[in-house]
């Protein structure tokens, strides 16, 4: 049986951390179990729901399908790195203003995904935002308000 860890350096929310990581550890499990960053949520664990979305070098990915050891040297941003209570990220404020969540479980992934969408710069219209947010499911069905919130922030930046 293979035994061993791989020394991996990740910058998580601006803090550089070097860790000995078992290669079969996903980024999601590392964040939640290893780094105690439980804002990132485990929904399906199969890349089907988007609850685990984080930003790697500014790009949104499903952290459940990424082995942490493959990200040596990467910069990772989770919901904890986007905003904090009392110092909310514009997307967090917009989600509050628009009632863009009910149970809140998908919300960290929605917001990280929306930041990724903004970084991509491809979505301008309502249809485009809806399509490019389709990787994040919301079982409460807050989609309409989520799109309103994202459009609000895109509009402010335009």
């Amino acid at each position, binding site marked *: 049986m293979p035994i061993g860890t791989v020394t991996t350096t990740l910058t998580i929310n601006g803090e550089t951390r070097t860790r000995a990581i078992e290669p079969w550890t996903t980024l999601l499990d590392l964040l939640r179990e290893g780094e105690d960053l439980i804002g990132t949520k485990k929904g399906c664990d199969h890349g089907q729901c988007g609850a685990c979305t984080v930003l790697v070098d500014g790009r949104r990915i*499903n952290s459940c399908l990424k082995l942490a050891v493959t990200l040596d040297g990467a910069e990772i941003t989770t919901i904890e790195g986007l905003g904090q209570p009392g110092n909310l990220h514009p997307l967090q404020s917009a989600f509050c203003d628009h009632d863009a969540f009910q149970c809140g479980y998908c919300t960290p992934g929605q917001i990280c995904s929306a930041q990724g969408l903004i970084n991509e710069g491809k979505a301008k219209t309502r249809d485009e935002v809806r*399509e490019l947010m389709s990787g994040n499911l919301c079982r409460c069905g807050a989609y309409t308000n989520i799109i309103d919130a994202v459009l609000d922030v895109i509009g402010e930046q335009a």
Partner: protein
Amino acid sequence: MNRFDYARPASVAEAVQAGTGEQVRYLAGGTNLIDLMKENVDQPTTVIDINCLPLNAIEELDGGGLRLGALVPNSDTAWDVRVEQRYPLLSSAILAGASPQLRNAATNGGNLNQRTRCYYFYDVATPCNKRKPGSGCGAIGGVNRIHAILGASDQCIATHPSDMCVALAVLDAIVQVTGPEGDRAIPIADYHRLPGDEPWRDNTLKPGELVTGIDLPAEDFTRNYTYLKLRDRLSYAFALVSIAVAMRIEGSTIAEARVALGGVAHKPWRSTEAEKLLKDRQPSPEAFGAFADALLAGAVGQGENDFKIPLARKGIVRALKQAAEATPQSQTDKRVA
């Protein structure tokens, strides 16, 4: 997920050297392989992380084509300005697939090599000749709404799930591979295979071979094309039937039309013989219908997926109309024009 040895070679030569062995897997974006490992469908003893290899560029080819590096993410490929302008069919097909997060991680090589999403392949408690040769096929006579209507065998009725590959089939792409016996170039039509009596083989790669790139020949299908994807949801769902069309119209007649289907077979389904029916014809519902009948000749339903045959026929006619009229399917406004 099982435990495995992990290697991160720095060169293609080192990767190929490490890549032989039955339970050795190359890991790129991981969006399919990691999922298969979580389900214990795949249990490699060694995982070779190829993400550091220099296969992450899109380059010009002599003669006006493009080479898509195997490790370029799907999203970067779809949004590359050269691909958007010269191969809009490919951009459209990629953007019809998966989600933005998955497209950011998934690579071009990985998209080619992704496995079927057949429920029985994924469920290790059930028989599956693709996963466990000789164990049987749960889908035949089982739950088979998403399965093949063309080219299936009595051992496997799985489909290839890719959207990108359907466009590549129409564009006559060439898959560049390297391996223990050197480099070779495989036309896309010969890359994926039908299940036959070896359904565990999705493609014609030899053991240890690694995809290094995908070449797109110079083509001018920038006006008359479409990628029409029909599925249960409007986004983030695999195709029940998809249709890629590239057409050249001279005057009022079709000089050339190429059509491939996704979601209906073990590989993108194309017939250059049937395409001759469209050559030198005026675009018309009758010509399109006759072609659809020819492309779908031999289609067989499995019960729950019988609907795919009339769906494909109507989809082909609609997609040909979209291409002929230069009104390609939008992947954001989902209305089918």
